[in-house]
């Protein structure tokens, strides 16, 4: 073993607390070697151990009749979609690497989540991305940095996804002060598989050989997992070499090779090397298999010369897998790796003693009980601050702004404006399944080989979460479900990415806890399991913590292609209805933020019973073929929703909201939840009204789709008018003009 002395400084440098180190001593019954210290350090980092969040995560509903692999059991959860087919999907963050090197940070984030999916035996079919940056307007240094991060992240996602040939079909991007210096990059991947193809990450079968396949190990992202669990400070600049470079081409070969391999009967277990690389994959496979694994670092294919066992063990080089091969089948395995031109080596074997044992030739450098290493990390229930819900916004303090001025401003706010600049850089059509392209509420993807139609969306309004984390999380789930309903889909599962600040700060820990509870409540309400997810803590810059951002990604199915619905008005003369009731709150709205510079008040309320009834009513009229378009009201409220529905087909609308005693700005821009704008052929109006009345949800006729040049909205004596072509130009042009084309 390396004879480096284990000093308190060294222990602290490895991010282990004195308490944790005591636990290490008691597990080993001796002092750890330097390599073992490194192994404990990464395995017990927040990223791998979830030591600060695991007790909270247990609150999620994770079971259900369609759940084939539960959250936490394997690399990703698996959900039955019928006829012997299933989907595996998951979201993962790469926030800190992206802050340091946006292009590679984002690219390797995409690569990592794709590996999680094909490790399950699933063929990846599409991606989504959820992004947060600081404001990109203006000439200040921070704005320039934010633009550079935004451009780099998008280019990195595009590079990896486009090259490997997976469409990025949906996502979200928000810009807010709280993300300056700490952007969020969450990537989602979904794969498809037959039930019998589910692969396990367990080291089964004592004596089975352990293969390493994929890129050679270099000194990439050394101790990156530990890195991801620390606050971003000036010091993290010193961590700069901790950047991994992704090679999507290698990953494409690895993906094809692994799927070809899994189709044979040669594999006893398979595990990707993600954060904590070789360490994590050997330890976890042994722990899951209830076995031990012994490997020799000298046998590992290496890129750099003279790497120490410590470096090889902790390297986070990308595009690598660990495969436990059924003894006797080695030849077939080698043949497949050779066909795909991938480096590989037999580096060890499965043992029966429950130990993770690492050799450096004849010398044993790590000898740790695998299960204890994987499971015995001390868990912390941090202190949660007490929380007083915010007071309702006092409307008297909000000066009225003329809607004719306000709507264009809202449409040009980068968080609301069209994200075409982003998704045009992503190949969103490869694999020829994207039936609803990015730009509408939820993306819709037809999985040809399974003859199934999937829909997916990702949402989180972090302003709401900042003001009231529980309510914000509930709304994030509801909005996802609503976006799916608008596309004609029924939700089947959720994956979440919990992005928060330092959990040692009680207010941050409260946010985490309240968000988990809110998500759980939402998932129970919609009857969908959480199939897995990711926790990213310590998202702080010197200016403070990010707004809590519990990103929700939801997947749904659509029974019949005829039910696929988009948000765009289809033809002049169609009648426009609003399902749901408009309230009078402006708290947490983008109108308040973008036009008044205020982030305050109570966010809108979330009534799950009402929300569910509305989704059910919408789906039933969609299935009866009555709905031409459906678009939910989110940021920017009713006026933004109507304008967005006009755009794609260059139509306009004439709307009359009747007389009310509400302020026009409140009426047009408030963000009451549970509202959907639909359009209907005139000939179907009475049938639709009858159907909606039967379902008992509130609805009203608002106007009609026109082929005119102007969007017209009347409320009582007031009438507002906008040239739709101008609005469209503002909406489409906002981000390109900030990003220089």
């Amino acid at each position, binding site marked *: 073993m390396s004879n480096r002395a284990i000093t308190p400084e060294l222990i602290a440098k490895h991010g282990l607390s004195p308490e944790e180190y005591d636990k290490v001593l008691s597990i080993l019954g001796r002092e750890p070697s330097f390599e073992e210290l490194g192994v404990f350090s990464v395995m017990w980092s927040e990223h791998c151990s979830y030591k600060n969040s695991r007790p909270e995560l247990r609150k999620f509903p994770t079971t259900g009749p369609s759940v084939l692999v539960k959250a936490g059991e394997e690399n990703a959860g698996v959900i039955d979609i019928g006829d012997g087919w299933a989907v595996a999907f998951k979201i993962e963050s790469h926030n800190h690497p992206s802050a340091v090197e946006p292009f590679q940070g984002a690219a390797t984030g995409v690569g990592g989540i794709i590996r999680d999916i094909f490790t399950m035996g699933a063929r990846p079919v599409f991606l989504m991305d959820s992004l947060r940056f600081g404001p990109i307007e203006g000439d200040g240094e921070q704005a320039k940095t934010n633009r550079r991060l935004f451009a780099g992240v998008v280019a990195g996602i595009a590079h990896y996804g*486009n*090259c490997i*040939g997976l469409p990025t079909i949906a996502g979200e991007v928000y810009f807010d002060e709280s993300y300056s210096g700490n952007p969020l990059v969450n990537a989602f991947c979904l794969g498809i598989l037959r039930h019998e193809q589910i692969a396990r990450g367990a080291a089964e079968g004592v004596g089975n050989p352990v293969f390493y396949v994929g890129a050679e190990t270099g000194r990439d992202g050394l101790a990156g997992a530990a890195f991801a669990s620390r606050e971003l400070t000036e010091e993290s600049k010193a961590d700069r070499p901790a950047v991994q470079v992704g090679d999507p*081409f290698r990953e494409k070969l690895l993906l094809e090779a692994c799927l070809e391999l899994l189709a044979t009967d040669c594999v006893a277990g398979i595990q990707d090397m993600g954060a904590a690389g070789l360490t994590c994959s050997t330890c976890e496979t042994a722990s899951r298999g209830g076995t031990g694994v012994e490997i020799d670092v000298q046998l590992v294919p290496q890129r750099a010369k003279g790497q120490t066992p410590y470096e090889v063990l902790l390297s986070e080089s990308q595009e690598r897998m660990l495969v436990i091969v059924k003894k006797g089948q080695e030849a077939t395995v080698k043949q497949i790796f050779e066909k795909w031109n991938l480096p590989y080596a037999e580096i060890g074997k499965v043992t029966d003693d429950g130990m993770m044992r690492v050799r450096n030739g004849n010398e044993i450098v790590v000898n740790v009980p695998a299960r204890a290493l994987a499971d015995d990390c001390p868990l912390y229930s941090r202190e949660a601050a007490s929380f007083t819900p915010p007071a309702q916004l006092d409307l008297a303090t909000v000066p009225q702004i003329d809607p004719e001025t306000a709507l264009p401003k809202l449409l040009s706010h980068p968080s609301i404006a069209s994200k075409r600049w982003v998704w*045009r850089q992503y190949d969103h*059509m490869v694999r*020829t399944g994207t039936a609803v392209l990015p730009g509408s509420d939820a993306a819709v993807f037809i999985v040809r080989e399974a003859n199934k139609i999937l829909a997916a969306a990702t949402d989180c309004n972090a302003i709401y979460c900042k003001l009231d984390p529980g309510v914000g999380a509930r709304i994030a789930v509801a909005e996802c479900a609503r976006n799916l309903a608008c596309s004609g889909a029924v939700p089947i599962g959720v994956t979440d990415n919990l992005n928060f600040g330092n959990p040692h700060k009680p207010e941050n820990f409260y946010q985490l806890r309240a968000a988990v509870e809110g998500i759980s409540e939402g998932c129970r309400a919609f009857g969908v399991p959480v199939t897995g997810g990711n926790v990213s803590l310590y998202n702080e810059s010197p200016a403070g913590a990010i707004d809590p951002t519990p990103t929700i990604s939801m997947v749904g199915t659509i029974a019949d292609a005829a039910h696929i619905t988009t948000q765009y008005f289809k033809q002049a003369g169609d009648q426009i209805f609003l399902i749901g009731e408009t309230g009078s709150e402006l708290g947490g709205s983008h109108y308040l933020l973008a036009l008044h510079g205020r982030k305050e008040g109570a966010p809108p309320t979330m009534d799950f019973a009402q929300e569910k009834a509305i989704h059910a009513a919408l789906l039933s009229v969609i299935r009866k073929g009555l709905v031409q378009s459906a678009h939910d009201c989110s940021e920017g409220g009713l006026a933004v929703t109507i304008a967005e529905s006009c755009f794609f087909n260059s139509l306009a609308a004439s709307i009359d909201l009747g007389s009310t005693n509400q302020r026009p700005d409140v009426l047009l821009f408030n963000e009451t939840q549970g509202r959907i704008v639909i359009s209907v052929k005139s000939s179907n109006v009475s049938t639709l009204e009858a159907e909606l009345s039967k379902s008992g949800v509130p609805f009203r006729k608002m106007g009609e789709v026109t082929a005119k040049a102007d969007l017209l909205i009347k409320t009582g004596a007031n009438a507002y008018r906008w040239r739709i072509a101008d609005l469209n130009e503002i909406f489409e042009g906002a981000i390109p003009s900030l990003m220089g084309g």
Partner: protein
Amino acid sequence: MVQVTTGSSFMKVAIIQFPGSNCDTDCQAALASLPGIQAEIVWHKETSLAGYAAVVLPGGFSYGDYLRCGSIARFSPIMRAVRAVAESGVLVLGICNGFQILCEAGLLPGTLMRNNGLLFRCEHLHLRVENNDSPFTSVLHQGQVLDIPIAHGEGNYFADAETLKQLNMNNQILVRYCDASGNVSPEANPNGSLENIAGICSHGRNVFGLMPHPERVCDPLLGGTDGRSIFQSMIEAVAKLNVKS
């Protein structure tokens, strides 16, 4: 001249799979949706294309497109066979990365440089059919406007002045980028291609490279069927040859 298995009503099409190809199965599915085609994936290490009536080089990132798009793929073993069948008159269609490979291999003139806007672009856009006197555009008419998407970072077609003159003189420019009403304008040019060129054929007219992806618009559920006309033209061209031989 062309070797086609007679007696079979199928036209056998080879879709070359390079390491890094990623539109191979998309092409296969699009072709399979047309009657009379049997589309097979052929691994790049194969050396023969005997028995195939047509060859498709699909889109993707062959060898990661690392050095230059298509620059490494052109040395794959299968490319010798592609060259041989192209010289014997077999139809060869290169889509996106396939077009880049055909240029790198010298089977088509010119080259595809980085988009002048420097960004990857994936979007639906319009193409004007400039010439229907080819086995790839015969079912279309001159001036017809097609809606076929692009998805590339390096589709900026360039050739020297003399080559460009030849291409025009010999009617080798089969499609150009245009707007919805068929105007070939600078605004309709997504990548800086010379003269809005989106696709060209060889002097012998049996090799066609185009940047847009016809295989992505062969199903009404996926935003249109304009891509089918290219494949349909190929089927008819092969059928005619069969009748002759």
